[in-house]
């Protein structure tokens, strides 16, 4: 990157000024990205009176954890939290298995109709999820999965993006490696499990993160497919409960405590595994 800025014979005032402006703009931008989260955090530690007192106070005083206790215990939010964990982990686990298997077939095996099937799969990526809304809803009812966690797990446990990602990555594994294992008499399933899966772990990590994120944050499908309180995922519960707290004046500190609970787990995952997040975007994006 450093090569991009020219070594001018005479450094000019304009360049220094330009750089200063760049920093200023970036700092302002970053601040506007982060500030709402800080405001959320601050509000979640205030009692109700502070939240509706003018002039606005930036920091909670007194500092209270009462909101967290209220939203967590008052609604059995632990149940909803657990539901979200179950759904996100289950979909992620299944997604890794289905996509790495299919990706392996598309990358390393020849079978009838391969090109055609792959083209059709890629073509489906332009179909908006909303198209499927009604038939999927009716299908889930018919399968007896309505208002069951399995109803928001199974339909999303394979995906075209994942298959594409895995195929691209597995294509880079040398054929000799697989042939050597075949000569040693390893079964196909064993080759997949012992060679293909370990060697494609970077792509699997990226797929895992995106799948987990997508399902942790999912809102529309749980909204449509889950009805009873003890089946709601965290996001659904949060939105529904926030309406209950909105009778009259919304009790924002409690809602903000809920929002913190919903957002924080993913922030932790993100901070710990940033490079997989960032790599995934460029993997799936600009290739041409």
């Amino acid at each position: 990157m450093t090569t991009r800025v020219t070594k001018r014979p005479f450094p000019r005032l304009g360049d220094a000024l330009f750089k200063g402006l760049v920093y200023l703009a970036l700092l302002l931008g970053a601040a506007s990205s982060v500030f709402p989260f800080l405001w959320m955090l601050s509000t979640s530690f205030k009692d109700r009176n502070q939240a509706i007192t003018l002039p606005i106070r930036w920091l909670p005083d007194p500092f209270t954890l009462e909101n967290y206790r209220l939203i967590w215990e008052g609604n059995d939010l632990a149940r909803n939290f657990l539901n979200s964990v179950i759904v996100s982990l289950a979909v992620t686990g299944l997604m890794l298995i289905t996509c790495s298997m299919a990706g392996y077939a598309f990358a390393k095996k020849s079978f009838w109709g391969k090109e055609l099937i792959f083209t059709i799969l890629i073509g489906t990526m332009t179909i908006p999820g909303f198209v499927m809304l009604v038939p999927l809803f009716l299908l889930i009812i018919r399968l007896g999965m309505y208002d069951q966690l399995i109803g928001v797990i199974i339909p999303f446990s394979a995906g075209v993006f994942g298959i594409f990602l895995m195929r691209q990555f597995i294509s880079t594994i040398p054929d000799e490696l697989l042939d050597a294992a075949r000569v040693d008499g390893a079964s196909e399933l064993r080759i997949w499990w012992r060679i293909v899966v370990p060697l494609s772990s970077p792509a699997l990590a990226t797929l895992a993160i995106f799948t987990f994120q997508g399902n942790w944050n999912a809102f529309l499908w749980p909204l449509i497919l889950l009805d009873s309180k003890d089946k709601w995922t965290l996001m659904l519960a949060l939105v529904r409960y926030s309406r209950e707290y909105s009778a009259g004046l919304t009790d924002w500190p409690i809602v903000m405590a809920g929002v913190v609970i919903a957002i924080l787990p993913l922030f932790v995952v993100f901070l710990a595994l940033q490079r997989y997040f960032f790599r995934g975007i460029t993997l799936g994006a600009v290739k041409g």
Partner: protein
Amino acid sequence: MAVVTQRRRRFSKELQKQLSAWLFLAPAMIILGLFLFYPAAMAFWMSFHDWKSLGGHVWIGFKNYYRLLTMPYFLDAVLHTLYFTILNVPATMTVSLVIALLLDTDIRGRNFFRLCFYLPVVSSGAAVSLLWKWILQGGELGILNYLISLVGLPIQDWLGNPLLAMPSIVLVNVWKQMGYYTLIFLAGLQTISPELHEAARVDGANRWQLFWRITLPLLRPAVLLNSILLFIASLEQFDQVYIMTGGGPADTTRTVAFFLFQSWEQGNMGMAAAVGYVLFAAVLVLTLLQKRLFGQEIAY
């Protein structure tokens, strides 16, 4: 004899190869077949029926589509979606491109800035909508109102004013998604060789010319990808509307996706399916149009 057995052996070997491939394809294909291909085809079938959630269904041909296209309530939703798109796409593109260009200079702490811009992207749309509902609150308690009153601007009822509700949702959307599009632009910028800029500079080009003559033309693949993704995302926008305004005030934020959801809620399944296909058609037309416009194929 030998030839026959050999051929038979070759055939059984081929069969085995096919079988083993399909063994690996089966789990994904069964799920996609059942929960992607079947519903997509079924929606098409349903869109030609008067299909209620309770009771039976009757074939009515194109009547759902005809009804939609002559229904002011739906046409309003189309207009609202277009309005959202027209605000959202250029705003997000501009902001993301500017941030990407700033990040692509030789600054310190690029990773830190990138992290900050990406935090809203990983956050749940539902949670973020609740957060912004609080920030955009009307009256003196809303923190945005407080901030703008510091600069001497009049306070607003951001989500309650029919003129401001949609722009406010766009604001939240830009804030949430800009980090994602920034990263795609950044990846595009990093494929541009620094020598090109060097050469142009030696020839006396200024920053403005560098950007318009070199950077932007070479960034075409990223611009195309971002605009396609943004148009699709704009047409499917739902969470923010559902949570922040519920389609109001005075129906000004009721988008096509929200209309589809309402049709489903009212048990009007055939109509909802038809709306889905109208959306799909819009996505297809937009995608093809943009590819044609940019005159370039892109792999993604």
